[in-house]
């Protein structure tokens, strides 16, 4: 029975990875399409390859945070960890599906963190854990990073674009500067894909790592195959569905020239990669929104709609409790009936 559950869990993890590829990766790559620095085919190839590399080789720290940074899985019964991880994956997957259908700009990161927290709280309510055992300080750090990352994106993008404007636009002809940045944007597109893979793979395979990573004697190690598995799911998501999303979002953001796209992408990727190194699960898309606003504030893009901030805050407030409640529900069902 537990084996069947694990198979089910693997499938849901793959689905979440696929959805991340189809939507989040696509959103991050759409800037390159919006500015027409790359064509759709090039973007798909870059995104698929570099998302995979980022996930497989740089995703470890964030996966660790999702797997054992919120719920102390070392002190739980391994069977409960299986139930909890699968509950978290299913609820994150379910909420992501609903939100995607409703076009809500939610974050898969917030969903999985909320879902893991739900698992922890359910374990507390059944007396398997004490409330203090949940790593609240870690959780607080994560939530703080959700606030800081879009701001960091905005500040970085503001400075990068301002520097380009002040140093390059004044010295050289505008068309020449843009032409050079067309090529530089190929580099930032890779950078964004790599950074995104490194941070967001955890949203799909973090709970899997909680199941498979635990070794005898409480020793913990994340299997590389799991990272590669998540990377593959993301790459597949981009290739099978992401191209539609890239096209759709790219058409909304045609006002991005190469220098603007470069600034927004560079700021986003740097912020996200730093977070990955620190093991902080953040939302790439929210960071990208912050970066675009930063370029807008530097006078780079006309008509940046900061009304979208409200929507994002609303989706935050919605995502955490919903993912948590789903997770508590599914976990309880699993514990009672399986």
């Amino acid at each position: 029975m537990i084996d069947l559950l694990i198979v089910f869990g693997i499938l849901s993890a793959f689905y979440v990875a696929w959805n991340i590829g189809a939507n989040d990766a696509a959103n991050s790559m759409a800037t390159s399409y919006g500015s027409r620095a790359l064509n759709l085919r090039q973007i798909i190839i870059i995104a698929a390859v570099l998302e995979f590399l980022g996930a497989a080789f740089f995703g470890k720290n964030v996966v660790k945070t999702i797997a054992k940074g919120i719920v102390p899985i070392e002190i739980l019964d391994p069977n409960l960890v299986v139930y909890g991880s699968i509950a978290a994956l299913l609820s994150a997957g379910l909420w992501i599906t609903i939100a995607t259908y409703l076009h809500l700009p939610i974050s898969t990161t917030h969903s999985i963190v909320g879902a893991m927290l739900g698992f922890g709280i359910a374990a507390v309510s059944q007396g398997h854990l004490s409330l203090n055992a949940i790593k609240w300080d870690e959780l607080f750090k994560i939530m703080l990073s959700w606030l800081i990352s879009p701001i960091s994106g905005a500040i970085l993008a503001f400075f990068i674009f301002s520097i380009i404007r002040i140093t390059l636009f004044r010295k050289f002809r505008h068309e020449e500067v843009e032409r050079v940045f067309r090529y530089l944007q190929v580099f930032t597109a890779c950078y964004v894909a790599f950074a995104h893979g490194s941070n967001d793979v955890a949203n799909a395979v973090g709970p899997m790592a909680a199941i498979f990573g635990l070794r005898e004697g409480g020793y913990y190690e994340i299997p590389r195959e799991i990272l590669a598995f998540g990377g593959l799911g993301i790459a597949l998501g981009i290739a099978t569905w992401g191209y539609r999303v890239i096209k759709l979002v790219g058409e909304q953001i045609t006002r991005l020239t190469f220098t603007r796209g470069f600034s927004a992408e560079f700021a986003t990727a740097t912020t996200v990669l730093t977070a990955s190194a620190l093991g902080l699960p953040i939302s790439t898309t929210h960071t990208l929104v912050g970066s675009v606003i930063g370029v807008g504030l530097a006078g780079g893009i006309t008509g940046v709609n900061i009304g979208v901030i409200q929507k994002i805050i609303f989706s935050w407030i919605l995502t955490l409790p919903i993912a948590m409640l789903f997770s508590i529900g599914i976990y309880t069902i699993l514990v009672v009936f399986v």
Partner: protein
Amino acid sequence: MKFFRSVGQVFGYSPFPTLVKHAVLCGRAVGILQKQFEAYERGNFELVEKFRDEIDELESQADELKEEIRTHVTRSLILPIDRQDLLEFLRAQDEIINNCEHVGHMLTFRKAKVDIKIMDELKILLAQLMECVNEYEAMVDHIGTLIETSFDKREIQRVLELIQEIESLEHECDQIQMKLHTLLFNSEELNPLDVYLMITWVVHLGYIANSAARAADRFRLMILGR
């Protein structure tokens, strides 16, 4: 396609393409006005009325564009220029086509006897006005490059020169107007009602040039005051 999440919403409304379209309508209205005067000269009053309706149609299209901008440019939109400056500029630009509409109406009030000397001078005024509005359109069209270069100083310099050009064209319109007024006030042989009508034309044609110059000035304030 229903299954997607998007951050595209952060890219809100940009008023500038619509602003350029609005300026193009102003230019077209002056062009029709020119044809309307020619039809008047030939005594083809049916055509004069047709042109009046065409200008009315352009004016109402321009009003729609103006409303579009005014409803979309909210405070939650980050623009590279001041929102208030933009709205003031739009209001000034809208006056150009409003004045065209007025003149278009005035041509249908009365079938005046046309004096060749006066008509020739009127045509000169209209040609000058057309040039002024053409320059004006070129100025507004620059907004795209201004934004792309993040208001590069050289680009601003180019636009400022255009604005000066518009202002000097408006000044020349004034000169022609003065000449026309002198002519008209000394046409004892003409019917006073005809003279009165033509004076109102001249005055209002002057308003068109004035409103273009005023809008150009607003444009200058907008791009310098960001």
